[in-house]
C-alpha cells in the first residue's frame, strides 16, 4: 500500500504551494522534507532524484515527480479534480493557465528590486482588475453554478481561490468589485478539507518575505 506523498522543497510557498493546496483540498495527508541548507539540495541532486536538477519534487506512488505542473496534473487526475471529459479538462486547463500567469506575477514581487516594486504592483493591479478577475467573474455569471466547470469542484476552483487569497494579501480592495468571486472564495473556504488547511498550524506556508528569499538564495544559489 502506498504511503503518504513526500514533498521536497524549502520552507516557503514558491512552486510547491499550489501542490500543498491541491493535496489538502483532495483530503490527502502528506509529509514534507524541507531543504534547509545547500547540502540538503546537493544530496537530492547527487542521488539522482531530480530529473532536471530542480525542485519541487514529490515522491508519490513509487515515482519521483518533478515539474510543478506535471505534479498538479497527476494529483488532479488521481483525485478526480480534472473534469469528467476532454472538453471540461480543456476549460480547466485554460482557466488554470490564466490563474498561474497572475499567480506568478504576484509570487515574483518578493524577488523584485525595490525600485521596480511600484511598477510591478501597478501592473498586477491593472491585470487583476481589468483582465483576470473580470474573466472569471464572467465565467461564473455565464452559468450561475457554484463551481467554475461542470457544476462540480475541480482544481480550477482550488487554484483560483488560492490566487484570491494571494491577491487579498497584496491588496484586499481588488476583490471588492467581484461578488461572484467573493462568493466562490467563501464557498470553497468552507469545504471541510480546505477549512482545515486554512487554520493556523496547517502545512500552508505564510507569505514570502525578503528573509525567506535570502535563505532560499543560499540553498539554491540563484
Amino acid at each position, binding site marked *: 500500500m502506498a504511503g503518504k506523498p513526500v514533498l521536497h522543497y524549502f520552507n516557503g510557498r514558491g512552486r510547491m504551494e499550489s501542490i500543498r493546496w491541491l493535496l489538502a483540498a483532495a483530503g490527502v495527508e502528506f509529509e514534507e522534507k524541507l531543504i534547509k541548507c545547500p547540502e540538503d539540495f546537493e544530496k537530492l541532486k547527487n542521488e539522482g532524484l531530480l*530529473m*532536471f536538477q530542480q525542485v519541487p519534487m514529490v515522491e508519490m*506512488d*513509487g*515515482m519521483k*515527480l*518533478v*515539474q*510543478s*505542473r*506535471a505534479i498538479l*496534473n*497527476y494529483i488532479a*487526475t*488521481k483525485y478526480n479534480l480534472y473534469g469528467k471529459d*476532454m*472538453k471540461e*479538462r*480543456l476549460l480547466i*486547463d*485554460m482557466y488554470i*493557465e*490564466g490563474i498561474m*500567469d497572475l499567480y506568478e506575477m504576484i509570487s515574483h514581487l518578493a524577488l523584485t528590486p525595490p525600485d521596480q516594486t511600484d511598477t510591478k504592483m501597478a501592473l498586477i493591479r491593472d491585470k487583476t482588475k481589468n*483582465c*483576470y478577475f473580470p*474573466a472569471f467573474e464572467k465565467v461564473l455569471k455565464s452559468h450561475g453554478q457554484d463551481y467554475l466547470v461542470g457544476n462540480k469542484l475541480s482544481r480550477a476552483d482550488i487554484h483560483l481561490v488560492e490566487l484570491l487569497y494571494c491577491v487579498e494579501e497584496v491588496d484586499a480592495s481588488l476583490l471588492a468589485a467581484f461578488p461572484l468571486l467573493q462568493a466562490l472564495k467563501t464557498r470553497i473556504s468552507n469545504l471541510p478539507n480546505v477549512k482545515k488547511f486554512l487554520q493556523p498550524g496547517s502545512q500552508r506556508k505564510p507569505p514570502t518575505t525578503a528573509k525567506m528569499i535570502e535563505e532560499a538564495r543560499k540553498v539554491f544559489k540563484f
Partner: protein
Amino acid sequence: MFPTSQTLSLVPGHCEAMRMLLADQGQSWKEEVVTLETWGRGPLKASCLFEQLPKFQDRDLALYQSNAILCYLDRSFGLYSKDQQEAALVDMVNDGVEDLIRCCSHLLHNYEKGKAQCAQELPGDLKPFEFLLAQNKGGQGFIVGEQVSAGSGPSQPIVSIAQKSNLRLGAEADRE
C-alpha cells in the same frame, strides 16, 4: 479532422509546437496572423479569454492558452497515454521542454549576449532527454512509451531554435 484556424501572434513562439503537432498528425489548418497594430487597436484582444494570443478555433470552440491547446490536441490525437504514470512522465518531459524553450526564446531576443552561455548550458540541459531516450529501447524509440507522445512534439522547437542559432547539440539534434 480539424477544420481549424489559428489566430497567431507575429512571433513563432507559442505556436510552433502546435504547428509541428498538427503537421506530424497530417492535419491541415488555416493561420490568421495578427499584426501588433491590429492587436493594439482591437476588439480581438478584448474578445480573448485573458486578452492574449494564441487563439485556436476548432469549429465552435475557441481555445486559448498554448499549454491548454497543446493538451487538448494531444488528447484528440490519442498522444496521451491512458496509463497515469506514463502520462505523468510525459507531463514532466513537456514541462522540462517548456523551461528550455523559455531560455531559448530569450536567446532570440538577446542573441549575442546569450549565445555563449546557452551554448555552454544547453548540452547539459538536454541530458535528461538523452537519458530517457537511451532508456527506451536503447535510443531507437521515443522519449516515453511505444509511440510519438505529447512529450516528443514540443521538444522539436528547441532543436530548431538551437539549430538556427548554430548551436552544436550533437546526436540529440540529429535524432529529433
